[in-house]
């Protein structure tokens, strides 16, 4: 029985020396194979490759392999960066979203925070108007300590407020006459107010700010206002 596969393998091994006894398909295969072999015999023989060629070939192959490896690393790094950026962006979006939420009164009011009360024992007998004046003055001085010599608008605002504050200061001092610590504080405050009101050059601002800090004027103005005390500390 004719076996096409076996016939063709044997035919190639014997290089067409055998008689063609196969089927039509095998006969066609043999004809094609003979044509290819004839074409190969007709072409010029392949020359022997010299040693320098193989040296050059090795170098080039190595270079191409390195380049290919680097390109692969670059692609991997690019993907990693993209992934990292996407993660960071997601975190940023989440944080922004979180910070945009308006906190509600009970959001942070956990039980760790002790209840607080407003204590006025230490200013008993002090005129209420003076207490309010001290609170306003504290904010004025705090504002002034943040002003820079180039903040023209803020400087003008501070001078205007100082001038206004000076107007009512005499009355406040009179109302606090029997409360020595407040009277002393208002005396200090008055001298600072006058410096602010009569500010000649913005370069003088740091001097006044330093004086405020050195004398602890904010602390003194704050000391004679109602204070928040935790219930557990009373």
């Amino acid at each position, binding site marked *: 029985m004719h076996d096409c596969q076996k016939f063709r393998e044997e035919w190639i091994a014997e290089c067409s020396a055998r008689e063609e006894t196969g089927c039509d398909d095998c006969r066609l295969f043999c004809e094609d194979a003979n044509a290819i072999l004839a074409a190969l015999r007709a072409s010029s023989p392949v020359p022997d490759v010299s040693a320098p060629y193989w040296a050059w070939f090795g170098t080039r192959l190595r270079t191409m392999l390195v380049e290919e490896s680097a390109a692969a690393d670059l692609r991997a790094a690019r*993907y990693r960066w*993209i*992934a990292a*950026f*996407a993660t960071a*962006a*997601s975190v*940023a*979006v989440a944080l*922004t*979203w979180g*910070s*945009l939420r*308006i*906190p*509600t*009164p009970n959001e*942070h*009011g956990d039980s*760790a*925070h002790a209840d*607080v009360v*407003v204590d006025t024992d*230490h*200013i008993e007998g002090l005129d209420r108007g003076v207490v*309010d004046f001290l*609170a*306003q003055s504290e*904010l004025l001085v*705090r504002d002034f*300590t*943040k002003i820079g010599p180039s903040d023209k*608008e803020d400087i003008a*605002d501070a001078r205007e407020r100082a001038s206004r504050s000076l107007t009512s200061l005499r009355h406040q001092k009179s109302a606090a006459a*029997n409360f*020595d*610590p407040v009277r*002393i504080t208002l005396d200090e405050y008055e001298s600072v107010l006058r410096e602010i009101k009569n500010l000649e050059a913005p*370069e003088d601002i*740091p*001097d006044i*700010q*330093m*004086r405020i*800090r*050195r*004398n*602890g*004027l*904010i*602390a*003194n103005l*704050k*000391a*004679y206002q109602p*204070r*928040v*005390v*935790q219930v557990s*500390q009373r």
Partner: protein
Amino acid sequence: MRLSSLLMTLTIVGILVTVPPQLHAQTPAQNAAAKALFLEGRDFVDEGSFADAEKTFREALTKYPKAEQSDKTSFYLITTLIKLGRTDEARAEIQSFKRTYPQSPWSSDVEEKRITLGMPGSVFQAYRIHAPVALPVPPQPFAPGRNTATFGVNINGMPNASLEQEMFRVIVLRDANYAIGLAKDRLKTNPSDPAVVSNFSTIAGSGSPQAFPFFVSVASDGPIPNTQTQARFWIGRLNNAEDAVGKAFIVLTGDRTLSVVVDVLNRSNPVERNNVLKQVVQHPSPEKVIALERVFKATTVQPFRSQIVESAATIPESAAREFLVDVAKHESEYPVRLTAIQALGVRKDVDVKVLGDIMRMWPPAAPVPARAKERVEGIRVQAPRNANSN
């Protein structure tokens, strides 16, 4: 490449969709609008309209969260919420502030509020644990002409008295005796240390038995007149918890510090002295009379001596009666003697014979000069006519 482009596009689109437009940096016009809202809110604060102030500050922060002075507006909002007694909301704002403006110059101001409200935090925790070490060296007292500040000086490096004040206040409230020791150390370095002086009221209100000796020491030794005045003022407002003032008064007047106490009280005003004496007489020990007697003998200020006699009059013990009898019999200053006699006159434990003995010890009244006698009689004659004319 297609995948990376897709991811990049999705990310950018996501951010643009999620972040609202007002979170981008504000334009000059928006900054101006934010400032206008802030000023409006500040005016409300000045007027005491805190509810309106809160609304305005919130509006400024909601509409222009990235405005130049949002941190200041946020601080004002925190202050306003505390004024309104809404401390939970103030706490929430403080936490939000720390997240939103970590580099703000208003951070230390907000830090004060955090401590005031008893919120936990890193700075405070460190301070509490290492209190004696962590307290920065206080600034030296102000000396005119010594100010070498020039433009560009970094004042932020200076101790922040108002922040230290808040920390020190918490220490006083937690352990007054320890805080008083700390205060003494700081006042040695800077006799007008604002963090301590501004907490005199807290120390006075603590009820510590060491408060009275502390203020006596400051009032007598302090080189700064204003600090001395304030110490004297708070001596008159000491919290007498567990008879702290009476106990300290007895101890201080029993040794070499008697002259110091007397000197301080001599320079105090009558109201301040009266407050101290009121608290001394409340002490249950009979030793208080001995202490008062010592001070009475040591002072030469007549109004103060009269006040001591008046205070002794309210003490029911027999030792007080004996003291008053002695003053009534032997005191050379007439107003003081008269005060003692009046005090004895209303006491139920005084025998009438004792009062009679006192009367007999008085020098006889000098005869009235003739001219004066005529004037007195003339007045007596005219008196009924004047009375009728009314």
